[in-house]
């Protein structure tokens, strides 16, 4: 199989002073796949996510991204203007806390429309129609379009954040603990939604989570991080059912039924 990856990171390293953020991380993401990244807090998962999405500059290493037009670019070598434009159109970033990804001062509709407007949409009606379509796709009633997300529940806010990111139909979405901090029942609904959106849109995602159950259900391939390094990677079910590294075995055995 000679598939081309959509994102390829090589030797990503980031230190915070004497503290290791991540060390020599290599990874590849292929079209329409969800790659899981697990590990305990402080293992460097979020650092890797921020480096991959261009929100943080690495000390060394590169992140090659294949754009929709077919060109390959290094996320960290292009101009700030171009990086921001790509981040707004072809990439998505879903924060664990929706407050960080939403603008609570404007309506849900405006939140969804923001990427379109930034991308040059100059028709109010077209922007609004797309906002309605996406609100419904994430199972929020269109009647709540003009409400501010302040009034939304945690689960609704998270779904709104997803809609806000997907409205430009990005190729790759970074998910940082998307189900963290949600009730179990709300979590389940969100998992289902993410899985369906992935299937419908054929998008790729990198999913950071410390919940092995979430990783098993959503990701096809899994990487385990410890102390800033990737210590084990492979098919999700293989890593979880036949873990090789002592730490992975500990992680798997410490989890309630996954």
């Amino acid at each position, binding site marked *: 199989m000679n598939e081309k990856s959509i994102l390829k990171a090589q030797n990503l390293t980031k230190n915070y002073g004497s503290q290791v953020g991540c060390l020599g991380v290599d990874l590849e993401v292929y079209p329409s796949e969800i790659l899981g990244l697990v590990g305990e807090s402080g293992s460097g998962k979020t650092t890797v996510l921020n480096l991959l999405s261009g929100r943080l500059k690495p000390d060394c290493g590169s992140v090659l991204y294949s754009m929709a037009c077919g060109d390959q670019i290094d996320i960290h070598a292009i101009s*700030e*203007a171009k990086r*921001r434009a790509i981040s*707004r159109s072809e990439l998505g970033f879903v924060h664990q806390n929706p407050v960080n990804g939403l*603008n609570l001062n*404007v*309506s849900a*509709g*405006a939140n969804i*429309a*923001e*990427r379109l*407007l*930034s*991308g040059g*949409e*100059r*028709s*109010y*009606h077209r*922007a*609004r129609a797309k906002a309605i379509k996406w609100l419904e796709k994430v199972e929020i009633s269109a009647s709540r*379009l*003009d409400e501010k997300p302040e009034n939304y529940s945690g689960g609704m806010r998270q779904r709104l954040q997803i809609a806000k990111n997907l409205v430009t139909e990005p190729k790759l979405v970074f998910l940082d603990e998307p189900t963290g901090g949600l009730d179990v029942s709300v979590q389940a609904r969100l998992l289902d939604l993410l899985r369906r959106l992935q299937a419908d849109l054929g998008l790729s995602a990198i999913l950071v989570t410390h919940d092995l159950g979430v990783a098993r259900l959503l990701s096809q391939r899994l990487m385990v991080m410890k102390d800033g390094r990737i210590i084990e990677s492979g098919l999700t079910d293989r890593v979880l059912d036949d873990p090789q590294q002592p730490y992975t075995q500990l992680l798997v055995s410490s989890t309630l039924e996954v």
Partner: protein
Amino acid sequence: MNSKIIKFTDQAPKEAPNPLNLPSKFRRLNYAYLDEDTKREIRRGLLKAVAVPGSQVPFSGREMPMPYGWGTGGIQVTASLIGPNDVLKVIDQGSDDTTNAVSIRAFFAKTAKVKTTTITKEASIIQTRHRIPEDRLTDDQIMVYQVPLPEPLRPLEPRESETSTLHALKEYGLMYLKLYEDISVHKEIAISFDYPSLVNERYAMSPSPIPRFDNPKLNMSKALHLFGAGRERRLYAVPPYTKVAPFDFEDYPFRIQDFVGGCALCGSVDSYLDEIVIDDKGGRLMVCSDTDHCQKMREKSGGEQK
């Protein structure tokens, strides 16, 4: 443009000059109140502002003998430009006779010994708060605006570092977000004053709190427009013959306010009208906000009747 205004020396005067024999009361003050170094710094800032239309240039803003919000930015710009041959007009909400306008006029009459006027056509510098005169401006006139909030993105983005990045990258999606929100809530773009505009197809600019009725007057104007924000310490400019386009949507285009009926005093139908309460029973009158324009129209129609 008045050539004498732009001409300035590199050397600061060695002692407080008094070439115009200012009254003794003001003799200790420099010409036009500000010291020459400050004026020179402001003029440099203004040159940069003119060179990059719509872009905000920081300056070090002096304390003025008036509170912030009363036009400290505008008055510093005027002070740095004004020369003995200038004729100054000052308006506040279109009116020449409010306390603010009268005081500023008197201030410069005394400190800079300039002629003042209320007639738009006669003025070489017009300092304004919240209006652009109805009369067409000419290419030897300078408009000086008093600006409270120079950053058009500020209400949408509180971080200065972020707004300056947005300007640098010409990312004005937030502007459209604000318009989107207005239309969703009010069914129209609900910005009546300080309507943000794109200058020279590059920088988003706050035109100061002029009514949106006045926005079209900025576009391709023959006059030089200079903006000074005292508290925020920012200068910016719209040079003559520069495109100034209000932000809008294809399907919700920019519109100026329209008024039903004309001015109750002069009958003018194409000027910006203020509502004035005339008695205790709620009687109201719509009259021109530009007092000079109104006066002129009344004289004209009066003359015709005779």
